[in-house]
């Protein structure tokens, strides 16, 4: 009898637990998982290595060239999308240099390189240029280019092309380690008088001035020197700890856009009066502010905004005050892109439809050859 009583107690308890769980849950969830799985398609994956950081991409002739330490290329119209490694030569001799940035400027390819000495005891750096012969998979680089600093001791950390000017950011062993050099022809470089304690993260040209974001500061200038903008000209709602992620002037939208690492997006048409996205509050995912990065204009209606760890966002129509215009890349079945840090975007307008690339940190290169106004998130594939 005692045993029977115990059993019935167990049964009552189990019944209570299960019913409680069921009534508590009773089919909850905001996304239909089975439906999502049913519609998931295998992501196209071309031959470029996947677990790599893609630091640069350019198009020369019919070929895309990307830097990920090594350099690869593929034919833009190659249906097999096969990527070929590029043999690197430096001044006619074989080299094992690693390329950490690419830029195509004034008909030449520019690459920032890191090289170990032959006995592996020293590391040198340099900016090199090459006239690319697309008939071969070999690039013979010339350099290092004398940009006005001791070549072997400075590391080139950023290459920007802004307003027809090649801008080179270097890191040197000084108290203010970040220096800016610039050139309008790719051969003769000038040194900016202003040096920076933090990495200049992005640069754009607006209102007849270059705008530079460095940590939590905004600088303007004419490249020969920069000065921080007046405190009163910073966006309202920007707190002192706000680090900026990207700055971009969109001629299509007629506004300067600014993103921050704490989830905010700003825009201005005059450089002093700022509009804010999301009512000035950080845009969040799972209660964490999205660290925004660089902007990239796709067409007259669409701009992309990279993030650090949350893929990218679309900004439609340029009006950031309307939250409906700012949408995150939505296909989380492409987990690596959905949670990627997007370093750069690139579009190839000569293709129809326009092909778009997203360079990620650690998750390779992604492309979308069907990026129409319908925003085909499911069409992204991995190169």
């Amino acid at each position, binding site marked *: 009898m005692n045993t029977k009583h115990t059993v019935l107690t167990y049964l009552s308890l189990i019944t209570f637990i299960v019913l409680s769980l069921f009534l508590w849950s009773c089919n909850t969830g905001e996304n239909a998982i089975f439906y999502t799985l*049913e519609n998931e398609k295998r992501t196209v994956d071309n031959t470029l290595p996947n677990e790599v950081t893609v630091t640069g991409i350019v198009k020369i002739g019919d070929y895309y060239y990307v830097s990920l330490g090594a350099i690869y290329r593929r034919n833009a119209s190659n249906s097999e999308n096969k990527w070929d490694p590029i043999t690197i030569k430096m001044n006619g001799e074989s080299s094992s240099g690693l390329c950490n940035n690419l830029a195509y400027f004034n008909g030449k390819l520019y690459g920032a390189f890191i090289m170990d000495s032959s006995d592996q005891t020293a590391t040198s750096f340099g900016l090199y240029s090459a006239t690319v012969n697309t008939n071969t998979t070999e690039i013979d680089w010339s350099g290092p280019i004398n940009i006005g600093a001791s070549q072997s001791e400075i590391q080139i950390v950023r290459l920007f092309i802004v307003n027809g000017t090649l801008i080179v950011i270097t890191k040197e062993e000084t108290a203010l380690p970040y220096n800016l050099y610039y050139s309008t022809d790719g051969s003769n470089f000038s040194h900016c008088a202003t040096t920076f304690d933090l990495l200049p993260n992005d640069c754009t040209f607006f209102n007849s001035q270059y705008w530079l974001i460095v940590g939590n500061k905004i600088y303007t200038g004419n490249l020969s020197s920069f000065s921080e903008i007046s405190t009163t000209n910073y966006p309202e709602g920007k707190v002192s700890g706000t680090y900026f992620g990207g700055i971009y002037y969109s001629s299509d939208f007629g506004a300067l856009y600014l993103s921050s690492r704490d989830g905010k997006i700003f825009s201005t048409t005059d450089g002093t009066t700022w509009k804010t996205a999301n009512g000035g509050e950080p845009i969040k995912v799972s209660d964490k502010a999205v660290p925004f990065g660089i902007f990239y204009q796709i067409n007259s209606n669409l701009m992309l905004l990279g993030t650090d760890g949350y893929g990218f966002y679309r900004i439609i129509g340029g009006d950031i005050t309307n939250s409906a215009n700012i949408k995150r890349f939505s296909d989380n079945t492409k987990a690596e892109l959905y949670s990627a840090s997007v370093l750069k975007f690139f579009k190839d307008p000569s293709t129809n439809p326009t092909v778009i690339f997203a360079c990620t940190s650690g998750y390779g290169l992604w492309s979308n050859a069907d990026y129409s106004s319908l925003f085909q998130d499911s069409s992204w594939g991995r190169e």
Partner: protein
Amino acid sequence: MLWKYRKLFVVFVLIVTVSGIIFSESKEKKTQTVPLYSLGDQTLSINGGLFVPLFFQATDGSVKPTNLTPGGVGSLKWGVYLNGNVKVNLEAGGVFAFSPNFNTLLILPITLSGEYVFNYFPFNFPVYLGTGITITRYQTYTHVDFILKPGLSAYWQYNTLWSFGINFVYWWIFQPATGDQPSYETRMGNFLEISLSALYHF
């Protein structure tokens, strides 16, 4: 709509849990051997094996592909005898399988089951019906759903303490469109578990 399912579920669970008591009053068939266990005896089994995604079904009856690879399943099941042939069990486990892009689907069911054991010493053949909830996790998505698990097993009784066997369990998971989801996204997941068991009596 959901209230309708809740009521059905509550009725079902009550049927399952009292079935043992009803069965315990019934006579055993003469063709079976005398059971070794009786009211109050308990079991604990560990199960592991293959999880086979079969198909999804929409509410209009159409069958859809799961796009999942075969996966793995594991569970712990605690049971108590109501008489020599009838048991009730509480089971918790987990399943994994992969999507076309090798993203991992996780299903964590918690179920209560009623079980009838056919005894043919040294073999036992339990048939059972379980019900409960599943917590389904995929990427950033989580869904809590209703599950039915009918199944049958075959055990070889090594001694009075240990049995070893194989299980065939059908999983039916009802995943309705909830929240802002459009109703056409409702799916019923159909899966098959084929697993091995080690069962301890105490």
